[in-house]
């Protein structure tokens, strides 16, 4: 299963030498939006200057609660949404513990990280990487 | 002696909120508990001592139906 990871010690969340290219590349190239706050990952600067990352780890909890089976794992183990069957109930969003299932007010279907690695390439400090890890066990939620 | 929802209950040293619930067999999960008017959070049921003479209110919310 492809999973996005971050090494916070390399990340410049405080924007001294980077403009959060990860978020802007994700939002623009993957979701064709403009506002970096709508990216499928969030890097936040904390008061003490350190960074905090909110990433989807492809845990699959959202797959478990989706009533329509719009969510499933693809061949690479990544959780993807089939917009044709999604009914916009947002249970996936409410049940994502990391709160990284995203929504654009203009669309009824929500969206999430697809572990594509575009942000990895965009990061000037190589803080992000895509790793291959085993799929976690199915959780009853 | 303490009062639990208006009924008398024997007090003993070390009585906790949990002890009151067990004694009265209050097993319902949606409770609002006050001891002498002070709200007790669920995580503090085991640690909160009920003093002698206390007024304990165990409000059961509605459920089911």
């Amino acid at each position, binding site marked *: 299963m492809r999973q996005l990871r971050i090494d916070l010690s390399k990340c410049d969340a405080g924007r001294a030498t980077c403009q959060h290219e990860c978020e802007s590349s994700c939002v623009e190239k993957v979701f064709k939006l403009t506002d970096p706050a709508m990216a499928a990952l969030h890097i936040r600067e904390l008061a003490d200057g350190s960074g905090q990352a909110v990433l989807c780890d492809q845990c699959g909890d959202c797959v478990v609660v989706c009533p*329509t*089976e719009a969510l499933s794992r693809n061949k690479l183990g990544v959780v993807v949404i089939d917009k044709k069957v999604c009914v916009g109930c947002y249970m996936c969003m409410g049940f994502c513990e990391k709160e990284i299932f995203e929504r654009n007010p203009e669309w009824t279907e929500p969206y999430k990280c697809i572990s594509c690695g575009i942000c990895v390439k965009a990061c000037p400090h190589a803080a992000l990487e895509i790793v291959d890890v085993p799929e976690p066990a199915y959780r009853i939620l | 002696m303490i009062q639990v929802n208006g009924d008398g209950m024997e007090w003993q040293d070390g009585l906790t909120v949990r002890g009151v619930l067990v004694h009265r067999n209050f097993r319902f999960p949606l409770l609002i508990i006050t001891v002498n008017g002070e709200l007790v959070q669920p995580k503090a*049921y085991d640690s909160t001592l009920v003093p002698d003479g206390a007024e304990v209110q165990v*409000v*059961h919310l509605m459920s089911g139906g």
Partner: protein
Amino acid sequence: MSQFVFDPTKVMDIDFTKRTEYLEGLEAIKAAHKVLKEISFTPSLPDKGYNHRSLYVNVGTLEVKEKPVTQQMKDVFLGGRGFGLWHLWNAVKPTTRWNDPENEIIICPGPVSGITQYAGTGKSLVVTLSPQTDIPIDSNVGGYFGPLLKFSGFDALEIQGKSECDLIVFIDGQKGIIRIEEAPEEPVDSHVLAEVLTHMYAENDADRVNISVVCTGAAAEHSLIGMLNFSWWDHRRGCIRLKQAGRGGIGTVFRNKRIRAVVCRGPQVKGDLNNVADYETIAKTGIKYHKEIRENDPYQCMMRRNGTAHIVEIMDAYDLLPTHNFQYGSHPDTHKIDSAYWQSRCTQKTVDGCWYGCSMACAKGADGLVVKTGPYKGHTVTVDGPEYENAAGLGSNCGVFDPDYLLELNFYCDTYGICTITYGTLTAFVMECYQRGILNKERTGGLEMTWGNAEDDLEMMHQMARGEGFGIIAGQGVKKMKEIFIKNGWGDPKLINDIGMENKGLEYSQYMSKESLAQQGGYALTNKGPQHDEAWLIFMDMVNKQIPTFEDKAEALYYFPLFRTWFGLNGFCKLPWNDVVPSNNAQQPEAHKIPEHVQNYVDIFTATTGIKIDKDELIHQSAKVYNFQRIFNIRMGKGLRKDDHAPFRALGPVTTEEYLSRQERYDKQIAEEMKLDPTTMSLEEKMAAHRSWRQGRYEQLTDAVYKRRGWTPNGVPTLERLKELGLDAFPEVVDVVKLHL
């Protein structure tokens, strides 16, 4: 607190995709259909929750037409149960009875119904003249039918007339076709029929989720307690699931009209089909609520794991679980049917909402039941539930503590199309009559109706479905059974009347009201009859002692019935209101009303319709419909004080055994409340004292409640109250009231 913690390793390993299939004869069944009428219509989507038209179908004359939904209908009746009552009012006369052709069945989802973002928003309300009570009955039911009907283009479906052949009404909201088809060879029982029809009317596999079937079963034809099943396609299980419009015999009316099924094929559901005024507010409120369920439900009611069955052992612990026809409140065998058991028996590895977006997901299913008796003996089936009412009604109240038999009783109630609550209460009555010699083996035609005899209990149900023997008598319900047993001279009329748990002709649902005066009113001072969906006040009254005076109780019996009526006007489910609460609820003023959730409802209503309301206006909206329904009852010859009396079993101890089982409590009341000395009194004297004290208090409560509701001492809404509510705009409503002032 002492709630069982979910342990996935305890869940039974049952394959939830495996069950007996019934599709073999599908082609032949379909080939036998004959189109009696076909008309086309222009499908539409609602605008801010309303299509502004309803669909009228007369199954006798085959007339099909569209009717406008007027601004006045929206202003006064809102939708759901309100529209249902309004259509019914216009369809019937005071002399109309349930089996007259002019009686209607109205199915109406309500303006909010069909949004997918908040829990419990897919309900339909069903209204008809009840064969049990002769007044309107209303039932709030899940399943996909209501939303799909609305997304096809109709705010309500009104069915009138009586057919001479069995037929199906098919509404195709994708193609814009309404078809009435003669259906001579359909299977009769719901779990088969809904499966066959879902496959028959879906154009391909993916289309099945767009189909919902309304149908009943064999017992609805031979009893007065028939229920309607509303289906949806459970994609993960690969089967249909059923939710029930249970109370009051709606299924009996359905079959009396010779309708086999009403099928709706709607468009593919998307999140925005209800075209609400303010989508963003609904989305945000929904996500906040889903999060609350994720965080709190595992530590509160565990609705996602247990459904409503989580309160079985709780009711037992508080001496409130109806046992042996409401005689006692607990039983040593309750642990065999408690939530820990159902948690392990129900399939946990799937999604169990009865409409999209229901994160509360109480519609649990027990898969892999191998049926032991009756026509489906040996079949592997999925049973919906059991919900609390079923576990208590079919279980403890009849002394049945074998969970497999309980599931089988539940399964047959559902597929035969009878109400589990009604069946539970009437069987408990039969069993107590058997215990007390009012019935015996000869009078039941060989059925041995002893407590806990699940086999004969099931046989009685099979007889009901076959239209045979004692099953026919039992299927008349408690009220008619009482009349029959008294007429036959089988027992002391007073005893029979005391222990027959019905009011207005409807059986009590499964809570013990004996020790809670407020709940006695919560049951018998209702519009449709004793169903807990108006007010459930036992904890507030008996355990918390929050409402000590008559006025306090009257206030609760004013607020809660109106608050809860509102769910049925809009197409909401009641459970998400109070089966989970926000973490900071305890700190809120009026915490018992769950203020944050009330605000959610206010916000969702406003965001759907664009009509700005607050929590007081919400109550006002309900009061219009609630009082209208009361006046409707009066118009039909009920709805006065005499009709609000309760059987004594609901008020206090009828028998010496009951008295002795709670002697300490009862003696104390004699001393403290009645100021008598119990030590000098015989048991008979003590029981007589309780009877008059309790009946007196019930009358005092009735006075206080009528006063708070703006009714005369005879229970009639006053002209001033009508004016406040704007009901004085309807002269025919005013006329009914004037006759009784």
